[in-house]
């Protein structure tokens, strides 16, 4: 279980998260929606300790992330796969080296690494892309490799940072299917940060709207679709203020 507890973070004196509190239950996919710059990605980065909170904390299975020492943080990161907005693939490594990098770190036998890389690439429908370099892939393929890199670790949790941003509608739908398939086949708990409402409705069990640094509303897909909150309505309908 991942719990955001009164999380606070400011940059240059401007508060981005201001008492963000949210529980993500085991096995569910929680979608965090919100306007650009509302702090969705900032919240996600706190889960793996990439950012240190000014106040509050993120609790992962009872462990307060900001209190973990180096070894504790390494162990925690081993349980979490992170899919970056622009994939963040290593340009100098091939696709299979990218996907296997986290496994090399765990010092798994080479045969097991090769097998897991193969399985992960097959799951994202890129079984033959292993020898290619990231520069040779389209944006959608790069994002799928990013997912493969995350799932190759067989994590308990996967965090997706804007997985469909910059993709055409068809490729976005493919990404949505992939996220659903990943949850169904691997049973992982997921947090998806997005402002793509079609994607949110497809992949989310629950949706939380982040507004002015805190949760404005959280609920199931139907609850959010039927929300009477003017800010939530404005966002999900895509209406200008």
């Amino acid at each position, binding site marked *: 279980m991942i719990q955001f507890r009164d999380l606070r973070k400011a940059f240059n004196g401007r508060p981005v998260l201001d008492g963000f509190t949210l529980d993500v239950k085991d096995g569910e996919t929680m979608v965090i929606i919100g306007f650009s710059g509302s702090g969705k990605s900032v919240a996600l980065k706190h889960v793996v300790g*990439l950012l240190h909170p000014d106040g509050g904390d993120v609790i992962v299975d009872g462990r307060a992330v900001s209190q973990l020492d180096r070894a504790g943080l390494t162990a925690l*990161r081993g349980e*979490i*796969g992170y899919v*970056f*907005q622009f994939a*963040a693939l290593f340009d100098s490594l091939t696709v299979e080296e990218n996907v296997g*990098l986290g496994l090399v*770190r765990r010092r798994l036998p080479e045969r097991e690494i090769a097998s897991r890389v193969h399985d992960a690439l097959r799951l994202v429908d890129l079984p033959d892309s292993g020898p290619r370099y990231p520069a040779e892939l389209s944006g959608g393929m790069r994002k799928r490799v990013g997912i493969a890199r995350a799932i190759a670790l067989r994590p308990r949790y996967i965090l997706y940072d804007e997985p469909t941003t910059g993709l055409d509608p068809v490729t976005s739908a493919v990404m949505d299917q992939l996220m659903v398939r990943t949850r169904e086949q691997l049973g992982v708990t997921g947090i998806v940060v997005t402002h793509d409402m079609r994607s949110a409705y497809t992949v989310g069990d629950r949706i939380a709207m982040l507004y002015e640094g805190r949760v404005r509303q959280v609920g199931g897909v139907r609850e959010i679709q039927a929300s009477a909150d003017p800010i939530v309505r404005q966002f999900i309908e895509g209406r200008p203020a």
Partner: protein
Amino acid sequence: MIDRIGRYAVDRVRAAGRFGHFLADLVRAVPDVATWRGPLVVQMRKIGVDSLPVALFIAAFTGVVLALQASYTFTGTVPLYVVGTVVAKTMMLELGPVLTGLALSGRVGASVAAELGTMRVTEQVDALETLAYDPQAYLVLPRVLAGTVMVPLVVALGIAVGILTGWLTSLSLLHLSTPEFVKGLKLLYRFKDTWFGLAKSASFGMTITLIGCRLGLDTWGGAEGVGRSTTRAVVFSAMLILALDAFWAVVLL
């Protein structure tokens, strides 16, 4: 005015504190040999072997100029075999290490800052951390070790090439014989000439890579930020090389 000076002073102290943290993290990464061993070999090639052409090019022409300038200065006053002394001493003590260091601050310092800066702004450094890698062990330590080890080797080869071209110039243009040049070469040679130049070069290599890594990992602001970090890495490295050069001269000579 006082407010601005105070703020500047606080910023400098903070920057020094952050650099101290950076160095402490680097030392803490040393036992993680399994992580830095592989990238170290790659960096030794990139920083050392790939720098040879530019370093040897500079050294070759420096040797030629040194021989001709020494001859111009000494003709009619000092025996010309002293040309060998001047070429060897100057290449070993000063021009070999410093000119190579300045050239590598451009080639290596810029390349390290740009590479790590790009990795920072494209979230590749964050991705490394989420894969449980320590960026200090995977990115910084191999570069700093490679710089510290390989720059003296590059400088040593540069010194050899500089002396070689100085000798060839003496034979062909100054009409010195090989025994005369070698006599000058040996005249005031001390073993300290060799290790002083190489030790200094190691400190240059460490400085260039440390500055490049630090500024690269500190990059923010997209492509413009990468450009800013790269420029600062070259400028700071060059300035520190000249300052270190003076420091070692005061301390060791």
